[in-house]
Every structure is written in structure tokens, then in C-alpha cells.
């Protein structure tokens, strides 16, 4: 670390540093494929450590006309990635050759970027979910990738994935898909202390392309025994 002094004659230039830890962070992103396309969900919170600082952060955005991307982790790195992708989308326009980047190629492009940054020991501190054109993929800060029928980042990979494994079907209608994602985010709000009950849903369908909804609040119920009664009163294992 560098030292800062108020004496101008003893001024030092801060040496350039690499990312050590994230500062402003978003939590889980959850996504799934359904009958009409693909859908992502995430809350609109960016935390500043344990403080719920930014409650209208947009963590899911569109890229071009047919791709959506959701990010958890460092929000400023996500913004930088979006700038890069905007440049990439503009390149397609400038080439003017009828070629449009699809979700799969954007996923591959991000993989190359994330892995390169990791190899320079200066990662973009994000876990990303890329969706579109019947494609759903994951890229993380060290360049790991995978594709699947449903994906979740952060706490979602512990709490939402089991729900999705139980309830997901390939022929989910749009309403069912949305309800399933809302259930996942609701559970995440109950149990992830960096989560919020104000969420966004986004989808990519063949007809409309990529669309991100306005944020809305999830209904929650804290009356259940698990929350309202003290653990000692419960029979069986309520903790210590």
C-alpha cells in the first residue's frame, strides 16, 4: 500500500494496483430457459459491504437487440464490461454486413476477456449470466464457462439451484417461468443478507428480442414459524 501525506514536497505517486477485492457489489443472478425463450432475474440492490447502499441498481441489461446479460459482483466492472460490449455492438453496425452478434458469441467474447484479465492477475470481479437466442451461459471472474438449462450465481447457486432442479421443465410457459424465478428470488431475500425484495425480470424471445422489465417489489411473508417464533420454542431442530 502507498502512504499519503499532506506535505506536497513529500508527495508520492500511488503505484498502479490490481483488483484486490470488490467494493460495490451485486448479489445473485438467476436464469432459466423456457418454452418461449430465456429469462433472467436479479434484485436491484448494490451493497457497499454490509450496507444496502444503492437500491435501484440495474444489474440486468440488454446487449444489441437479442441478448441480455446479468451481473453479480463488482458493479463498476459490470459497467466497464457494458461499455466494451456497446463498442462491440457498434462495430457490427459499422461493418454493415448483416452480421449481428448472438448471445453465444458475446458469451465467448466475454470468456476471452475475463480469462485474459485473470491471467494478468487483475480480474473483472463479476459472475455473469448471458442469455439470448435459446442460449443460456455463465462466465465468471476467472474465465470459467458453462451452459445449462438454468443457471444461478452467488448465493443463488446454493439456494436457487435446488429449487430449479426440482421445479424446472423444458416446456414452462412464460408465466410459470416468471413465477419460478420470483420464488427463487423470494427465498434469496429471506436468506441472503445482501439481497433485496425489489427485482427485475428480463427475457429474450424470438419475436420481441431482449426486454428488461421495470423493477417491482416481491411480496414476502415473515409470519411463518421459521421466522416468527424463537428457535428454542420449536420442537425438533430450530437451532441452539
Amino acid at each position, binding site marked *: 500500500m502507498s502512504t499519503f501525506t499532506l506535505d506536497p514536497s513529500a508527495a508520492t505517486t500511488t503505484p498502479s494496483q490490481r483488483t484486490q477485492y470488490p467494493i460495490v457489489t451485486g448479489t445473485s443472478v438467476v436464469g432459466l430457459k423456457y418454452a418461449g425463450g430465456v429469462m433472467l432475474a436479479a434484485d436491484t440492490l448494490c451493497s457497499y459491504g454490509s450496507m444496502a447502499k444503492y437500491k435501484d441498481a440495474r444489474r440486468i441489461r440488454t446487449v444489441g437487440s437479442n441478448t441480455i446479460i446479468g451481473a453479480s459482483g463488482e458493479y463498476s466492472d459490470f459497467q466497464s464490461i457494458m461499455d466494451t460490449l456497446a463498442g462491440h455492438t457498434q462495430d457490427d453496425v459499422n461493418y454493415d*454486413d448483416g*452480421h449481428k452478434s448472438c448471445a453465444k458469441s458475446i458469451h465467448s467474447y466475454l470468456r*476471452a476477456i475475463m480469462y485474459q484479465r485473470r491471467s494478468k492477475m487483475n480480474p473483472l470481479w463479476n459472475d455473469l449470466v448471458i442469455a439470448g437466442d435459446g442460449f443460456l451461459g455463465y462466465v465468471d471472474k476467472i474465465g470459467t464457462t458453462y451452459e445449462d438449462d438454468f443457471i444461478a450465481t452467488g448465493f443463488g447457486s446454493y439456494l436457487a439451484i435446488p429449487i430449479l432442479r426440482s421445479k424446472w421443465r423444458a416446456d414452462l410457459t412464460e408465466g410459470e417461468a416468471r413465477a419460478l424465478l420470483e420464488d427463487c428470488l423470494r427465498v434469496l431475500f429471506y436468506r441472503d443478507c445482501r439481497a433485496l425484495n425489489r427485482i427485475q425480470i428480463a427475457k429474450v424471445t424470438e419475436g420481441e428480442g431482449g426486454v428488461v422489465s421495470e423493477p417491482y417489489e416481491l411480496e414476502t411473508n415473515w409470519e411463518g414459524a421459521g421466522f416468527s417464533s424463537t428457535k428454542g420454542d420449536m420442537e425438533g431442530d430450530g437451532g441452539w
Partner: protein
Amino acid sequence: MFRNQYDTDVTVWSPEGRLLQVEYAMESVKQGSACVGLRSENYVVIGALKRSVNEMSSHQKKIMEIDSHMGIAIAGLTADARSLAKWMRNECLNHKYVYGEAMPSKRLCDDLADRHQRTTQTYVRRPYGVGLLVGAYDEATGPHLYQTCPSGNVYEYFATSIGARSQSAKTYLEKHYEGFNNSEKDDLIMHALRALSGCVQGDGELNKDNGSIAVVGKDQKFILIENDELSAYLDKLDVEGGNGDGDGDAMEES
């Protein structure tokens, strides 16, 4: 004409507003043996006449694969062509690594054109002395055929030919191109062979040693058809009687 005074450097204009070095480079393309290219709704076929120095030597390779969805036929300085092919292959490979998809052909050819143009506007280099016929198939936009030129112009064609005696092939293609769009793959190959056969010198004929065909398209990765594999098509050509008669016309119109 004051040709000689203004033709030493590529950076010198002639009084008629021409870059003579570039035009001389284009002459080099015209000296190379003929190449043809044509496309249908789903396929591109490129063909070339391979020259051999003498009876003892091999026939110079004229068609090169760039990627599984793209290939080139060359006319002119072979060494320049190989250098360009190396660059094109590298670009295609890099694109595939980063984007997980095949390089879109038009943007590669635009960058190829820029590369050519750069050599016409600098002191220390010379124009590429080769013309390429680039045949490619893009999933999104279908088959494409491009022609490059030492000047840096790159145009897309439905059918074209370059090299020595290529006017014969051009005449054939102009006559028959309206039927190409709906042609089957094998019909396209036959058209290419008929066009090529008119470009052979003197009494020579198109045979399996000097003929070379490549195809790429829908459900068809780039494939080179030469030697014995080409014989099947050449035999059909002989049956038609269209081989070696110098004007590239088939006996029957199909």
C-alpha cells in the same frame, strides 16, 4: 504517354491521375493462369487452371483453404498469395477463438482490402501482385464470392474470373449465370469446369492434373476436388464434348 517517368514509386501519380505501379501489379494478375468463381443460393464453387513449368514439374497449387467455411483461388505472384492466405487463416482462427463462431466473410474481405490499400500509399512497400477469388459460406447470410485486386478494390460477385485468357470464362459465365442460383452443387461444378476449359492455352485441354475445383456451402465444409476425384466430373465434360475446343461452350444447353 509519360508512363516511364511516373512509374518508379507507388507514391507518385501520373499526369493522368493514375498510380502506374498499382496498374503494373494488376498486370501480374493477368499473367497468372485462370481462376473462376460462381455461386448459387447455397454453394460457392471456385476453380483454377494449374500451371506446370515443364513436363517434369508439379502443377502449382492455386486453391487454398482458409477455414472450414472459406477458401481462395489465386492468380499472380504465388508468394504474395501465400502471405495473404497466412494472414487470413490467422484472422479466422483468432475470431473463432474469441467469438466461438466462424469469421463473417465480408468483414474479413474488408480488412483484406484495407491491407491491399495500405501498400499503395506508402513509400517502403509495393502492392500485392496477386488477385484472389474468395469463396465463403456464412451461416447468417449464405454463400459469397469476392474478388480482390492489387489496387485494394474488393467487390462481391455472383460469378467472375481472373487470370490469363479469363475473358473466355467471363463470356461463358455471362451467358449462363441466370441459371446458377437454383443450380445443384454438381451442376455448378460442371459450369466452373466448362468456363475453365475455355481458358486453356492452344491445343491443351483441362485434365485431372491441371484442373482444380473447390466447393463450400450449406452443409458443405470447404472441400478441394483434384486429381482422381476430379476425373468423374471431367469425364462428364468429355461426354458433352465441351473440353479443349477453346470456347468453353457445352454442346447441350441444360
